[in-house]
Each structure stands twice: as C-alpha cells, then as structure tokens.
C-alpha cells in the first residue's frame, strides 16, 4: 500500500493537461431534453429535460447529491434503466467515429446488446462489490470477449485480457485471482480494465472511487486521466465529491432534483458559480489549506436540522 503511495503525483493537472487541448470540438454524445420518470404510485420525475453535449475525449463531471438523478441520467444514456424507470421524452444520439450517428433510445434487442459496452462502457457504483465473487478475474474479463467478440480464440482472449490488466497497472499474473484476493484499488482497476476491453468511445463512471481511501483514489484518478490520454475516450464521471471533479473534469454539470442547474467549464464553476446550489455545494467542502475562518466549529447551524 505504501509502495504505491510513492507514485503519487502532487498535481493531477500535470496528468490531465497532457491531453493538450483536451476535448476536440467534435461531439461524441448529444443528449436533448431527456426526461426520465419512475412510474410508481406517485411518479417521480428523476431527470427533467436534461441536455448536454459531450465532446470526444472530454471528461464531463456530473455532480449532485444522492437522489439528484445523476445515476438515473447516466443509466438512461445506454438504456440501462429498468422499470419502473421510463424515458418519456428527449433523445440520446451517439456520434460514432466510424459509423455515424446512432439513435441510442431507438436501439433494442440484439443491436442494443452489441452497442452497450463496445461503444459506451460503464464502471459501476460500488465497483468494489461489482466483481463476481465466485469466478476468477480471468473468467470475467474473457467473458466480455466471448460475448462481444465471438471470433476471438482462447489464446487471443487470454492475451488481450492480460494486456488490459497491464494497461491499468495490475500484474497480469493476478489474472487467476478472485475478487476477494484483491485490494479495493486493484478491484477497481480490474473494473476499469473490463470497461476498456472493447475500446469504447465513451466511459460512464459512477462513483468509481467513493469507497477507496484518498491515496488509492488518487492513483485511480491518475490512471483514468492517463488512459484517456492514451486511448482518447470521453468520460462521464459521476460523484458528489466536487473538489475532486474540479481537478479532473473539463466541464461539470451540477444536478439537483433531476435538473442540470449549471453546466460550465471547471474553471468557470470554481471562480464564478452562477447557481446558488452550486455555491452551496462548493461551500460544503472545508478547505485543506485555506484559512479556517469562522467556519470552524460553528456549533449550531441551520443546516444541522437537515
């Protein structure tokens, strides 16, 4: 654990900005007025008229509290939502590099199955527990290929799986390990390797580092930024940790009660937040090095009653 701590880069910016002009102006995904409703006894409008454009190679942060709709929105992007959730309006268009535009919401059956993971891959929330505990890492990685690339033979699958592990910084000899034999950070790396397997143009990462401690979290973030630079995929990064998003994202969307209340570059959001909720979210994180001000132990605050 401490060995890896030695690799920490003090400033994530040096890794992030390596991408040069970061995102190209060419879009990879366009979401227009997406509406998602949970059709329960009292319908919950979880995502309201969400619109955003994601550029090739861009990291878009999606910030908000639990229940703000950020995960629902992300699931809607490749139809992973399940009843009672239903998309009642809007469009999601994926702009493939080789095969042009894909109307994601119109996909179904076999075409949806092949679209998922190969074009838009996901790293799920609680990835610590997303690996199957009773089969090996090898079996889980190779499963992606047997499903999506049936033409590959066993040797190729094995080779590609090991290559993926190397790519995310896991010793390929660990390929026979089971989830419980890996540390939290390694499990997370394996999840990322799995998401990278089919060379997706877009990765959706739902709280990928939430259960990890700060040092391991930092390593994983560095890894994600480095891989983006190498492979050029775009990222939708979901978390409630706004300071972390500010450091890694090109642009950030702040969600509240299903609505995107503010969408701007990380710089604009940090220096000139427009929406009161954004300011409030920014104010929820005590600064490590700044003055402690009158914030320290304010005792009773009106917020307390929440």
């Amino acid at each position: 654990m401490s060995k890896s701590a030695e690799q920490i880069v003090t400033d994530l910016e040096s890794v992030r900005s390596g991408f040069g002009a970061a995102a190209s102006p060419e879009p990879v995904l366009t979401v227009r007025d997406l509406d998602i409703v949970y059709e329960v006894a009292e319908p919950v409008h979880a995502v309201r008229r969400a619109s955003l454009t994601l550029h090739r190679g861009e990291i878009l942060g999606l910030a908000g509290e639990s229940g703000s709709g950020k995960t629902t929105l992300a699931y809607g992007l490749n139809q992973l939502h399940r009843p009672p959730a239903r998309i009642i309006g809007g469009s999601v268009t994926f702009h493939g590099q080789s095969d042009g535009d894909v109307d994601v919401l119109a996909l179904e059956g076999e075409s949806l199955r092949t679209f998922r993971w190969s074009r838009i891959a996901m790293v799920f929330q609680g990835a610590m527990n997303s690996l199957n505990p009773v089969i090996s890492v090898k079996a889980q990685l190779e499963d992606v290929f047997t499903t999506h690339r049936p033409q590959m033979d066993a040797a190729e699958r094995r080779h590609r799986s090991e290559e993926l592990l190397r790519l995310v910084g896991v010793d390929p000899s660990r390929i026979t390990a089971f989830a419980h034999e890996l540390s939290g950070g390694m499990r997370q790396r394996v999840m990322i390797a799995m998401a990278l397997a089919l060379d997706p143009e877009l990765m959706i990462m739902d709280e990928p580092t939430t259960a990890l401690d700060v040092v391991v979290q930092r390593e994983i973030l560095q890894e994600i930024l480095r891989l983006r630079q190498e492979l050029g995929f775009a990222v939708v990064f979901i978390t409630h940790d706004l300071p972390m998003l500010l450091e890694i994202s090109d642009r950030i969307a702040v969600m509240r009660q299903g609505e995107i209340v503010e969408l701007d570059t990380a710089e604009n959001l940090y220096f000139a937040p427009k929406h009161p909720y954004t300011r409030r979210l920014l104010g929820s994180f005590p600064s490590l090095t700044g003055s402690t001000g009158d914030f320290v132990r304010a005792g009773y605050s009106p917020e307390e009653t929440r």
Partner: protein
Amino acid sequence: MTTLTATDLSKTYLLRSGLRFSRLQAVQEVSFELSPGRTLALVGQSGSGKSTIAKLLMQLERPTSGTLLLDGAPIGRRGRALADYRHEVQMVFQDPFASLNPYHSIGHHLLRPLLLHGRATARTAPGAAKELLERVNLPADDAFMERRPHELSGGQRQRVAIARALAPGPSVLVADEPVSMLDVSVRLGVLNLLARLQQEEDLAMLYITHDLATARHFSDEIMVMLRGRVIEHGPADEVILSPREEFTRRLLAAAPEPATNQRFLAEAQRRGVPMPDHLAHQEDLG
C-alpha cells in the same frame, strides 16, 4: 470529567491460510490520551489500523499488549465493570444504514440504552429520549419516536446513532468515520452537531477519518497512522500545514484540493482574482 489514556497499545491478529499461520500486526505500540473537551483525529489509509484502535477502545477486541486507563485506573474487562466502562465510553459507527436495527423504532433505539444504563426509569425514559432527540436537532415527538430507520434520511439516521451513543451519558466518544456515508451537503451539519455536543458536554472525542480537511477543522490534534504505527502526532494545524513526515505530505497531496491545483492557480492569475473562498457561502445554505 474523564480522561482515557492508551499506552503502547498493540494488536496482532493471527491469520490462517490453510495449514499456515501468519501474524498481522494491525496496531503497534500506539499511545495517546483523550481528554475532556478535546478532539483527537486519527487519519490514515484503509488498513492502517484506525478502526482496530476504535475496537480496542470499545473493548470489542482485546489488545495483545498495552494498557488502557480510565482516569488513571485500569479499565473493567467484564461484567459489571465492563458495563461501568460503557457508561463512560461510547461509539458512533460509520454506517447509519447498518448500525440501526431495521426492526426497531427510533424510540426503542434510545429507550434501551437509557434503561440499561440506569439513566431513566420506565416512567421517565420517554421524556429522556425526547430530550436526546432535541439535542441532536431531530423532531422530539411521539410520531418520530415510532418511526423506523428506513423512514429516515442518512443524516437523520446518523443523528439517531449519535443520540443513542449519548444516552448512557458518556464522557468519551469514539466516532469512526461518522460522516463518510452521508451526503456531502449534510456532512458539515453532522460534524457541527458533534462539535457542539462536545462543547456542551465537555466530551473527550476520537474522530477517525480519512478526510484530512475535516480532521483539521474539527479537531485539536491529529494523529497519522501508517501500517499500524503512529508516525506523526501534533496540533491539527501544524500537522496539516507543516507536516514533518513524508507520508503525511503524501496523504495531504492525495486529497482533492482545487485551491492548490496548477490549473486553478493559473486561472486565478489569468482572471486577476484571488482564489475564491467558497466556505464564506455557508450562510447561503438552505
């Protein structure tokens, strides 16, 4: 008031893998003191031994060696003496979704410790429970007492867990990552609550966390652990602002902090403005 003193605490776990045994030194020769009205923060990576220390203090684990003294006297290990110890030392657990029993009402969670620790009689207990709810800023009425954990938000649950820990009237409180499972916007509220209760009650507090920023803001002293050992221990601001150990510096460097990020520093220069102080907007809340 009461002071809890730990001297050279060590805990070694015996691990078995098939026929082979190995030892894991989870905590090695850790010494500290929890004194009234003061908060000691314990920070470190996962697996550094933070939670083992909490378990040792709560007597959920026995130390392999070392001593725990409560006001200079050896602590009770069993029976009546252990109950007496628990009057004084209580804990708030990390996960309020797991630490409250889903079958029992909020009232039950508060009445039990009040009765078991002799803080109230069957007649006075409901009133005392409501008083506890009031102190943690929860609605102090019968309707709330009858609710069950699943009907509450994470922040409310953690407040109930805090009220429960306060029920025996402890003088030492161990809080193991009390806000890491909560939404960001309610975290500061719960920490502020703990800080206020501590001041009101003159509690001695151990705040276990991996969030260095809140460790700095809510404690007097910080203790940094690495692989079971305390490698740095000092006043909160000193440890954060001028760390002596390389590892502490690494831990600090790993925490997300836009204010020290080159990109935002450059942007501040470009805009010709100082770095923004977002905490000043705390008043905009609500």
